[in-house]
């Protein structure tokens, strides 16, 4: 079954068409990468999939596990098992990370009609996942993302992915701002979460993340359209020959 099915998607932001007809299908169990230069519409694609206000779908549709998402609010999409790891995770002063995780986890469970988990159980769950990502207790006690380093923020995003166990994860420029050690740590975290009933969409500018998270398919995004698709080696080709040449070919 296809986890995500994007069909002729057109998106307008501030009166300007950014995505101009994207068609894409990701089956369960696969990892797809969307690569593109600055201004190609990568961020617009991830925000649109997550349902951010201001990203207006003017044509086409997004099917998630067969269901049309277009009218759903961001929190409804999250509760249905979609997860977006942001390029720039947001700082929320005063909101303790652990409390945030518990609030989000329970909001999703509540929306799905599942029983909520208490603070103690949340802590236990979080601890299990956190160790692998080298996230310490102190980090969980600090306000969300406030004063976190780039690597800490990204690891926390992956921790959330592990905690929420989404069916579809969208990783938006997860490699940006990471040194090689941090990148490996994050990639390992992602790879651990690869599963037959889970799909992932990795959105990135550079190839380097894809040597750690090897995708099943690579799509090249340029000026709001997918101009080329291929296997994992397409990423390498892009790195060597540049976007312009590959897109023109």
């Amino acid at each position, binding site marked *: 079954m296809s986890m995500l099915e994007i069909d002729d998607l057109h998106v307008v932001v501030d009166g300007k068409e950014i995505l101009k007809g994207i068609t894409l299908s990701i089956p369960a169990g696969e990892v797809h990468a969307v690569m593109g230069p600055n201004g190609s519409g990568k961020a617009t694609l991830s925000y649109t999939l997550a349902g951010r*206000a201001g990203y207006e779908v003017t044509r086409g549709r997004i099917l998630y596990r067969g269901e049309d998402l277009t009218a759903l609010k961001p*929190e409804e999409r999250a509760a249905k098992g979609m997860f977006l790891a942001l390029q720039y995770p*947001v*700082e929320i*002063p*005063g*909101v303790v990370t652990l409390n945030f995780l518990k609030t989000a986890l329970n*909001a999703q469970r509540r929306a799905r009609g599942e029983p909520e988990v208490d603070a103690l159980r949340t802590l236990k769950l979080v601890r299990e996942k956190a160790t692998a990502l080298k996230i310490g207790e102190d980090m969980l006690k600090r306000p969300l993302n406030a004063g976190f380093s780039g690597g800490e923020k990204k690891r926390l995003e992956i921790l959330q992915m592990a905690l929420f166990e989404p069916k579809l994860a969208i990783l938006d420029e997860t490699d940006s701002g990471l040194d090689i050690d941090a990148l490996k740590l994050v990639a390992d975290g992602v790879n651990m979460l690869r599963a037959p009933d889970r799909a992932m969409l990795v959105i990135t500018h550079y190839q380097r993340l894809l040597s750690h998270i090897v995708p099943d398919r690579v799509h090249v995004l340029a000026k709001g359209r997918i101009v080329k698709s291929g296997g994992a080696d397409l990423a390498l080709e892009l790195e060597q020959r540049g976007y312009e040449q590959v897109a023109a070919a």
Partner: protein
Amino acid sequence: MVAVKETTERVADIAGEKYKYGFVTDIEMERAPKGLSEDTVRYISAKKNEPEWMLEWRLEAFRRWQQMTEPKWARVHYPPIDYQNAYYYAAPKSNAERPKSLDEIDPKILETYKKLGIPLSEQMLLAGVAVDAVFDSVSVATTFKAKLTEVGVIFCPISEAIRDYPDLVKKYLGTVVPVTDNFFATLNSAVFSDGTFVYVPKGVRCPMELSTYFRINASETGQFERTLIIADEGSFVSYLEGCTAPKRDENQLHAAVVELVTLEKAEIKYSTVQNWYPGDENGLGGIFNFVTKRGDCRGRGSKISWTQVETGSAITWKYPSCILRGDDTVGEFYSIAITNNYQQADTGTKMIHLGKNTRSRIVSKGISAGRAQNTYRGLVSVHPRADNARNHTQCDSLLIGSHCGAHTVPYIESRNPSAKLEHEATTSKISDDQLFYCLARGIPQEEAVALIVNGFCRDVLQQLPMEFAVEAQKLVGISLEGSVG
């Protein structure tokens, strides 16, 4: 936007039950005749079996009050208050003979407090919290008195203190907030009917939280309570007050006076969760809350800390202040003021540095939503003798929606070159990025707003006693329901 419409509808659905303290207890009341005159003052004094000196004190206040005019400088607008069209004393008839024990209290009153989440039976109470319950004009119950008496702490209705501890009352009453301090304090001095008296003797650390729960029940009635807390040398007490009132179309006046005195090395921590009925979403009804609260750090090295969570009332006019008289004294003010719909709050503090090495800290978080107006007004004043005085003030405002206002009016005066005063203020809105981040993690909009606002208030919430911090956090969320569209 679809989301907006749904949120609005959902809010409309729950608006009816939003203020869950809005019920009325049907109970037979005894009232003073309507209106305000010397006779009213005499009536109240007689009801309380007060000594002659107390009556004279009240009458003097009343005479002075008649010469005074209502202050107009605050940023609050309200129709003129008709002081003759209200009752100044209302007490449950069943309370005529004050019950000796909890078993004798009118079950209707017990039921009321139970509904408010304040069960008065000691077994059911939060362990470690003693409660004085004030119902309209009278105290109806005080718990854990015996346990407190063991360590010498006096915790009783002030009407009782006037009879039983006249020397203490005479020595301190009106010494922090003078009878003629301001229009509302003077009115209170004339007609105050009950309130709480606390005396913590030398060197005693009060073994439990003390708290007073104020309930306005009767219609067309003002509540004028008076609280006096004295912490003798080296003692410590933590005190908390909570307030609720029924939903009514009329505006009811609440004009309280609170006086705190700390002697050498004593500390008082005073917390308030004010949730008087705020009026409906069109601004109809609600409590007019004009309150004078002041602490006097009289003894060297003493400390007074005010924490307030102000979510209720149609009008809030309130400036809990510290007079840092003794050397090495410390004053603190931590405040959250939330206004929604048509609420107006003008609140803040005064830190008066008189002694050497005095320190004060102010953290104010104002949140304004709907069509509300929220003002922080504060004074930090350093007198010439206050060598090495220090103040730090952080004053942040959050606006939710484009029809509300948030205002900051700080007065900063330094007359000592060794003093150091710092003040910072910001005004902003909840950022779209923060909101989206929460939504994308599956947290619904209203919950996300509550979460972000609670984070914004964290520095203040942390100051509350643990038992009440959780309640206060919930209150923050409830107060803002319907504010985001």
